[in-house]
């Protein structure tokens, strides 16, 4: 039984990395990751919101939507839950860690539109996970997101010192780096 949970985590972090293999969470990925410190903060915020969101949406799906046969309200219900959660996190962060709040700036409300959160919430239903597996899956995915983000930030910090052709400066170069990272992560596929 434990074996299965380890597989879920390893799968989520490395093999099917949420950013580099599933293409969820690209916008904040490109936007936030120029400093390792901010990347760590963003990763933490996503971990918290994602896990909480998955728990709440899972409960709503299984105890409200399915019993009443209104699964088609999934998108609306889910996105409202996520938006509210992010508001809450914003308020809490403002009170508890104003420094981090400032550092994340506009990216915090943007977690709402982070497809990774909604994506994972939908995926756990598709994969028919029970609540425990869903939580583990979301922790794994958030960790994978943070991992990709931190590696990327580290690379970008060095890229600033390089001589990149004018047309490729900025996003194009970042995308190529992401592509190479994705290629590297494909190597993990043999692990599971």
């Amino acid at each position, binding site marked *: 039984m434990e074996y299965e949970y380890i597989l879920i985590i390893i799968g989520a972090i490395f093999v099917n990395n949420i950013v580099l293999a599933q293409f969820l969470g690209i916008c904040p990925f490109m936007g936030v990751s120029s400093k390792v410190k901010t990347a760590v903060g963003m990763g933490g915020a996503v971990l918290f919101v994602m896990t909480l969101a998955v728990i709440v949406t899972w409960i709503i799906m299984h105890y409200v939507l399915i019993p009443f046969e209104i699964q088609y309200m999934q998108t609306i219900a889910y996105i409202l839950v996520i938006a509210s959660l992010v508001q809450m996190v914003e308020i809490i962060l403002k009170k508890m860690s104003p420094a981090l709040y400032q550092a994340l700036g506009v990216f915090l409300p943007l977690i709402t539109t982070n497809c990774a959160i909604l994506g994972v919430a939908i995926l756990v239903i598709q994969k028919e996970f029970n609540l425990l597996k869903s939580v583990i899956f979301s922790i794994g995915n958030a960790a994978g997101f943070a991992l990709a983000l931190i590696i990327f930030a580290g690379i970008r910090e060095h890229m600033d010192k390089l001589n990149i052709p004018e047309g490729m400066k900025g996003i194009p170069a970042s995308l190529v780096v992401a592509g190479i990272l994705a290629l590297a992560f494909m190597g993990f*596929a043999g692990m599971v």
Partner: protein
Amino acid sequence: MAKKDSTFLNMTLTLLIVTALSAVALGFVYNSTKGPIKDAKAQKLKNAINIVVPGADKGEVEEFKVLSPDGREELTFYKVTHNGELKGYAVNTYSNNGFSGHISVMVGFDENGVIIDNNVLEHAETPGLGDKTSKDVSDWNSQFIGKNPAEFKLNVKKDGGDVDAITAATISSRAYCDALDRAYRGFVAFKESSDSKLVEVSDDNTLIEDNNTEVDSTSNENIGGTK
């Protein structure tokens, strides 16, 4: 252009109305599309069955579940008949050992357990490698046509079997064989129990008697019509 004030009453009322209207609109669209969605699913299933047991699209299909010998899993079987003649059994099988996890396979057996045809239904295997298990990509799975699993060992040659694995996609090939093997074992269990007229049948049984298309109770899965 004056915007409404953000008083508590206005805000609550607005949200309530917006959500209520949306819910109504969605309920309407949902009801209108419920039928076509069900039909599309049924058609997809029928097509999948027809690939592995040709004639399913013109004949009748009866769905039932079979319990495996160890009682741990249940496979969905589809009995295909046309004009009263048994065309074969399609089995919806699976394996969790694919390169990217779960793969879903449909295989058709004739009444002696010889494979009529087979195809992968759902998978997340690597394009160009593991996806060759699909007829859309290559005819790799044609090697199973006409084979009797009682003699043709459903393992890749590397594991001592008779199956030619896909080059550089041994894991996907193994998983596919695992799925076929699972289906065959289920078929054998079914044959043995039906020979003593004791077919394990699930609750969503939709027996289609003779030329009627009676569907019992609420469960759908009524595939195949007689006209």
